[in-house]
């Protein structure tokens, strides 16, 4: 038995929000007579933390404690439009709508507090649930008192609405792909180093360590961001060495219909995962956030492929890197075809290998 270790790296980029934009999210907020805040949005929480993150944004923006917030994304009667939780957009796009709605609420609280306190609202701020005169912190009025005054005294409902929509970036030249506007919101970046152990007799690959660095824009809740990155790392590990709907691809035979035959990563597949977060704020996300939920499973597969090459000297370019693929590659010991300045790998996989008509991949030389 011979086990070999190897390390490989990869660096990636990924856009936040829907490609080409044009995807609205909206939010509305009302304030109860005791100052507690009800947030309504249509952003599903699929584990991605919509409820938590948008509540944090609203609490921070208005200036009240987090536990004053109730967040209701439960139905389409009470919530305004949200395109949905996908495309790494829930924090960035829907969170921005929540921030905008909260700013309106804050402004209304300050206006009514100004009347109550007989101070210009511009000279007031909200800190930890209290409206405070700037420079004279002993002059203050609780947000609950302001909300009560609005309800019973001024006959007003304190509300705020926010809508976030970046215009759709159209492709104006389908020949070249030229667009009329930037087609992305923010772009985030990451790199990854993977360490593996490869058994050259059975072809088994174990990922032993993943070191990863993500530019998260701003970690609105670092524990949450870690969870996204760690969860993504395991999904990336699955993509790299385990998961495949069609084990005999392109054949559809023996497709697994159970967790016993479809290999989703389990706890014992876990490598050590080290995370470095860089905060390089986005220009227009809420508090500088970027969306990193999706990209979190992108850098591992190529880093693992390079680590396998480092360990046993073969490139496996069909995922996942199964024991069988490693053994077949070790057996074939394929070298690229070298002709002139061309170095051609994987000829047997190319469309050219099966083409009967004119559909070939031609490369100028």
């Amino acid at each position: 038995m011979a086990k070999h270790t190897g390390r490989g790296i990869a660096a990636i980029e990924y856009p936040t929000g829907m490609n080409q934009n044009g995807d609205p999210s909206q939010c509305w907020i009302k304030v109860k007579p005791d100052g507690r805040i009800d947030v309504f949005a249509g952003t599903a929480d699929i584990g991605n933390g919509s409820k938590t993150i948008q509540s944090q944004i609203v609490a921070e923006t208005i200036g009240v404690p987090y536990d004053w917030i109730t967040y209701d994304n439960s139905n389409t009667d009470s919530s305004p439009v949200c395109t949905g939780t996908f495309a790494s957009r829930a924090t960035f796009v829907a969170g921005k709508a929540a921030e905008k709605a909260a700013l309106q609420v804050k402004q209304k609280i300050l206006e009514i507090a100004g009347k109550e306190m007989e101070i210009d609202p511009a000279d007031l701020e909200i800190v930890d649930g209290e409206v405070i005169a700037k420079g004279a912190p002993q002059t203050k009025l609780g947000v609950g008192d302001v909300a009560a005054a609005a309800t019973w005294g001024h006959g007003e409902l304190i509300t705020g609405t926010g809508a976030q929509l970046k215009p759709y970036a159209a492709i104006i030249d389908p020949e070249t792909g030229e667009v009329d506007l930037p087609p992305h919101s923010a772009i985030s970046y990451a790199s990854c180093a993977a360490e593996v152990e490869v058994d050259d007799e059975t072809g088994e690959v174990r990922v032993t360590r993943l070191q990863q660095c993500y530019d998260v824009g701003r970690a609105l809740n670092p524990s949450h961001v870690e969870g996204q990155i760690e969860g993504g790392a395991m999904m990336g590990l699955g993509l790299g060495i385990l998961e495949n709907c069609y084990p005999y691809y392109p054949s559809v035979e023996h497709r697994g219909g159970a967790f016993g035959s479809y290999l989703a990563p389990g706890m014992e597949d876990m490598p050590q995962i080290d995370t470095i977060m860089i905060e390089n704020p986005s220009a227009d996300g809420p508090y500088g956030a970027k969306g990193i939920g999706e990209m979190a499973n992108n850098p591992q597969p190529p880093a693992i492929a390079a680590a396998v090459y480092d360990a046993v000297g073969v490139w496996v370019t069909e995922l996942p890197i199964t024991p069988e693929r490693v053994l077949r590659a070790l057996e074939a010991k394929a070298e690229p075809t070298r002709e002139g300045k061309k170095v051609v790998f994987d000829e047997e996989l190319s469309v050219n290998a099966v083409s009967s008509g004119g559909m070939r991949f031609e490369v100028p030389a």
Partner: protein
Amino acid sequence: MKVVGARIPRYDGVAHVTGRTTYVDDVSVPGTLWAKALRSPHHHAGITKLDTSKAESMPGVHAVITWKDVPLLEYGHLSALGIPADEPLLAKDEVRYLGQPIALVAAESEALASAAVDAIEVGFEERPALFDIRQAFDSESPKIHQWGNWYPHFEGEMDVRQIRKGDIDRAFEEADTIVQGVYRPAAIEHAPIETQVCQVVPEPNGRLTIYSCTQALYFSLGVVAAHLQQPLNRFKLVGGTTGGGFGGKVDTATETMTCLLVMKANKPVKWRWTREEEFLCSSTRAPWHMELATAVTKDGWILGQKMLTLHDSGAYSRFSPYGLTKHSFHHTGAYSIPNLHFDGYVVYTNRTPTTAMRGFGVTSVSFAVETHMNRIANELGLDPIEIRLKNANRIGDTSPNGIAYTDPSTVETIQAIAQAIGHELPADYRTMTNEPRTGELLPEHLVSQVGSTEGH
């Protein structure tokens, strides 16, 4: 800044750990019927017979629906953008993948619903099925749809997504080395622990309350309303709490059909997919086929890249055209490549339709471009970290569609990983930043691609 940036516990954390979070399957409405689907047993076949009368007459069976019951049979995932649809909600005269729904039954128990499905009489005429995307791509292969095997509705009714930038021929001519490779990541199951599920309850005022695990309440609301040709407020989607999604629960896979059953039975109906249905019939991440040829200089500059991408959409296009477009916009990865020639096709096969999944369109790029980059470094005998830093996106460099990057952090993230693994970098690489290219980092071939970041 006390709340933002703080490690606040999850809003739903206590509910999760006490079993109080209510998922769709936990909603218990008395008298709810169970739904079950008749699914295609063939990868590709004509439907020669469909007779539901025996199933309908079984005691305890309250509704059976087929394509005839759907007001607008075809409404696509991208129809809201004005793009023609290609997938019927229920198969009409042809099935194009194994597991495609043909009819649904609502009955008083799950076992009875299954028995009623078995009682539906259906006949098929098998047709050849295509699974190898390279063969499906070939213009001489049998056709899966009448218009062929290529998705035909990109801008200008083109059947290919193109990117063209710079002068690709010159780049390959001037290259010292051209490295070619083929990259094929697999189809992946989203496998959230909660399977596809919905429950629809008829309200006394004629509205339908739809308990849904959708990732996108309003998107799904629009899809249901369009198929059923009803105003949006006929329906109340209740959800927002989803047991994992990863892209697969944007599909609105259950809601519309369950509404149709409810409208027929006038009773609440639940449709919960089994894990086996989830694995075998729900959409997957696509298998991709990517061919790359990269023109490089011996000191590691990337002059140009030619790429062919085939995106396996399975039997119907769903979100695949969106995914391929996103793929094309990001097909250079984290690097500035001045000369590009990209052709991408959404190709139909007789696989389960593929859809969005975490990293949609770009997970494939990351694998192809990064593995290729490691091969290039290896071929040239260069350090894989240094070659990346050299070609990394910087402020003012332009994307494949000519948009200037405003604040990329490729350089910084790579430097951080180099440091973490103890990889010693030469001083000029260690001190690099993302500032606009000058001097040695702005060779002649990169000058023309630099754009303006103003107004972005």
